[in-house]
């Protein structure tokens, strides 16, 4: 058990070192296609780190949005503009100082946070105790997650469902329009029998 925890820490350190190395490589590359590919790798590495921290949903979003969609969007931008970066090696010292100061401030801010996995952290005791102890009598279902999603956070769930329903509807509308032929044939050739 000790060995596995130690290994997990070592893997954490390795992945973080890879993240830093990827960032430095992105700074030094002049070919923007390589930078796009490296940013995909960056997203995959962060997704691995998020999975290590048990934030599986965040990791999945990072992998699909960061490594999937934004890579394609970046490539589309490259197809419209150019794929080479202009050579520019001026050290912008005020910008560097600003970034270093703000990074230090953020790290200083994390010192006040509870430790990762701390069972006495406020996030685990603010309302979670009441959910665990009283959701069976207050709401009814034996599954606590169901009670939280359907009752305690009912409005939130309603909003999310509306968003997802709208997105699905938009996809259906977009896909249903593909059936129409581009060059319009004579009217009797294809009656508009699509189910839209």
């Amino acid at each position, binding site marked *: 058990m000790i*060995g*596995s925890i130690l*290994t*997990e820490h070592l*893997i954490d350190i*390795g*992945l973080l070192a*890879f993240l830093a*190395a*990827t960032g430095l*490589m992105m700074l030094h*590359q002049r070919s923007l*296609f*390589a930078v796009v*590919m*490296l940013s*995909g*790798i960056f997203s*995959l*590495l962060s*997704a*691995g780190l998020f*999975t*290590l921290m048990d934030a*599986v949903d965040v*990791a*999945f979003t990072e*992998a*699909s949005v960061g*490594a*999937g969609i934004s*890579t*394609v969007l970046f*490539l*589309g931008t490259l*197809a419209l503009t150019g794929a080479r970066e202009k050579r520019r090696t001026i050290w912008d010292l005020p910008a560097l100082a600003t970034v270093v100061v703000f990074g230090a401030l953020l790290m200083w801010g994390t010192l006040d946070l509870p430790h990762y996995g701390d069972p006495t952290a406020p996030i685990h005791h603010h309302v979670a105790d009441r959910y665990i102890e009283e959701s069976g009598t207050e709401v009814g279902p034996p599954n606590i997650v169901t009670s939280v999603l359907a009752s305690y956070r009912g409005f939130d769930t309603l909003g999310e469902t509306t968003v997802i329903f709208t997105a699905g509807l938009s996809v259906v509308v977009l896909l249903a329009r*593909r059936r129409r*032929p*581009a*060059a319009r044939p004579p009217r009797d050739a294809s009656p508009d029998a699509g189910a839209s």
Partner: protein
Amino acid sequence: MFIAAAAAILVGMALALVRAALGPSVYDRILAVNMMGTKTVLLIGVLGFLTGRPDFLDIAMVYALLNFVGTLAVLKFHAYGSLAGPRSDADDPPSS
């Protein structure tokens, strides 16, 4: 044993990263990204067994699917300049 596997995967990740940074051709870099995704999948799987929770295997498999689709999208984009496929004749859309 799992520890050795995890270490080997980390080494493979480092090699893929080097190839993505150095690789002269476009396909070296695409292959490096694809390999990085595969290594992430393997790492998640190995970590699940290492920490005694093999439930992560489902997530690893979803990642594998996502990686495949993403590589196809990048390759298609590189070949055609758009995701719609070859723009030869409009009334015969490609079935891929």
